[in-house]
């Protein structure tokens, strides 16, 4: 079973910052460049484990310290030195759709639409059916980005394909171009806007990002939760899945994790014969699948959700 991952990764880093601030007892620099914190300059005094009185920046009083606000250009560049990948283990999926509901909730996806779809797949008459969660593949040769006339959808250096909803003209060419049907369109007033105070809401749910929130008349899709990864945390679908189906990580770290278990990416892909969808199209996805062998659940256990959902 999976532990709840309630201690954010960035708690490691503030000790680093703290020791440096307290007199530079070592010269170690924070190796995770994206984890920069906006320091307030104000200090608070606190008691250490040993009962010493130490000082720390006020920014760390928040459960998740603020990360710097990014300009549109910085957001489009992405995080230097990162290359995000996802591994989806089909042997563990039983169509619970916790990923879907968490994603829909956090991104305020319009009712009826989904950024993650869990598809009941059966490749041929006599092959075994399986559940396949499908996200945006964040392709390295993204066909959707190729066709965008205004740079509204773009590929970042960390591999994430994003949409700038303040620029998108709503031509929907990217939707036609995507062979994975990953993209959805905001056909009507978005949930955020219709609930009022869109700006505030957007900041809460999608963090400090200046792009990738939903606007009527523009395209939306799975965005690998860039505000979460920038804070060193996992995308919502990854932490929402109780079966550890989704594993996320940085290819440059050669590691993927579902929060509870952490694997070396290259070994995992080798040992479990990982593959990508529609390799022949040359899109080079960033999402890898592990085949549904030695399954944790029978396919049928997921059917309940399927029938219940359609009513």
């Amino acid at each position, binding site marked *: 079973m999976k532990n709840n991952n309630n201690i954010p990764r960035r*708690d490691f880093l503030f000790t680093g910052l703290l020791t440096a601030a307290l007199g530079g007892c070592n010269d170690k620099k924070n190796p995770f460049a994206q984890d920069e914190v906006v320091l307030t300059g104000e200090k608070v005094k606190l008691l250490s484990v040993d009962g010493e009185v130490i000082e720390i920046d006020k920014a760390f009083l928040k459960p998740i310290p603020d990360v710097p606000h990014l300009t549109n250009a910085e957001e489009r560049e992405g995080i230097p030195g990162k290359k995000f990948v996802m591994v989806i283990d089909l042997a563990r999926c039983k169509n619970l759709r916790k990923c879907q509901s968490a994603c829909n909730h956090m991104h305020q996806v319009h009712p009826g639409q989904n950024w993650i779809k869990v598809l009941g797949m059966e490749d041929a008459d006599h092959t075994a059916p399986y559940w396949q969660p499908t996200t945006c593949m964040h392709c390295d040769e993204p066909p959707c980005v190729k066709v965008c006339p205004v740079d509204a959808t773009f590929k970042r250096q960390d591999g994430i394909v994003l949409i700038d909803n303040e620029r998108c003209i709503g031509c929907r060419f990217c939707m036609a171009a995507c062979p994975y049907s990953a993209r959805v369109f905001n056909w009507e007033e978005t949930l955020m806007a219709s609930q009022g105070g869109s700006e505030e809401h957007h900041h809460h749910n999608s963090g400090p990002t200046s792009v990738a929130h939903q606007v009527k008349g523009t395209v939306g899709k799975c965005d690998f939760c860039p505000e979460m990864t920038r804070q060193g945390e996992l995308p919502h679908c990854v932490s929402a899945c109780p079966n550890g189906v989704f594993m996320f990580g940085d290819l440059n770290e050669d590691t993927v994790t579902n929060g509870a278990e952490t694997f070396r990416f290259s070994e995992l892909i080798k040992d479990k014969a990982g593959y990508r969808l529609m390799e022949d199209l040359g899109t080079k996805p960033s999402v890898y699948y592990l085949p549904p062998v030695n399954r944790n659940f029978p396919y049928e256990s997921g059917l309940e959700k399927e029938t219940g959902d359609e009513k």
Partner: protein
Amino acid sequence: MKKLNIFPFQNRPTLLLFVFAVSLLTRQLAAQEGKKIVKLHYVNSNNRVQYLLLECVLKKGKVLTPISNQSYKIYLDSAGTNLISNLTTDETGKAKAFIPPSLKAVWDASSQHTFIVMSDDEEVISDFVITKAKITLDTSGADGVRNLTASVMKMENNKWIPAADVEMKVGVQRLGGILSAGEEDNYTTDSSGTLIVEFKRDKLPGDQKGNLLLVAKVEDNELFGSLIAEKKALWGVATKVDTAFFDQRTLWSTRFRTPYWLLFMAYSIIFGVWGTLIYLIRQVIKIKKLGA
């Protein structure tokens, strides 16, 4: 036809009032439906900074939703007197508290402390007891074998003694998780409070110099809470930040990185055709001048 008066409200104000009352009632029912759960975590990071993390979620069926704007008071050992902090949960339903220097005397007085969470005058959590503990992480390497040594000490009767049977993760800090240094997911300390893990992650990519951030982490131990120790080691492979992939001029690049062949083709066609068109418009102007 005779109108059937089956509707009890003759005028609009009453109807509105009724609707309002019903909506209030259903709202209250909906609020009662879920169960509010408050959780407290104690974290000790590198034996220096310690803090408390409070989590507040609403459990409705199987769905957990964070609740924001919930106010709590946390006390050390005795409710009402030793106030640690007034907390209000944020949008993620979390709030964080440091132990203030004013409680130094209380903190130093005992090796075991109870944290009490109160909401208004009600004790929400009263049995959260933490024993002071320390964690250390050391590296050693000889003959090509690299070892990680982690040890946990706990305080008993104002003395630091080894803590046995403490389960932890030992490995490399990665995005969102710890990649175990050895083959096991978790390791447990022996009677001397120590454990040794052989580092078996060969050629693991590190930072630009090859540094790895090694971590030993005890997570939510029932005696000690969470303990984290970090250490940097040059045990990885240096990785370069390679943006060559991103800087290419391809069909999927931005408009600032359009492939040269495409620029050449497009502009030669555009200038060719529009040059001719401008020439033709000048011809029309010429015709106009001839007639003037």
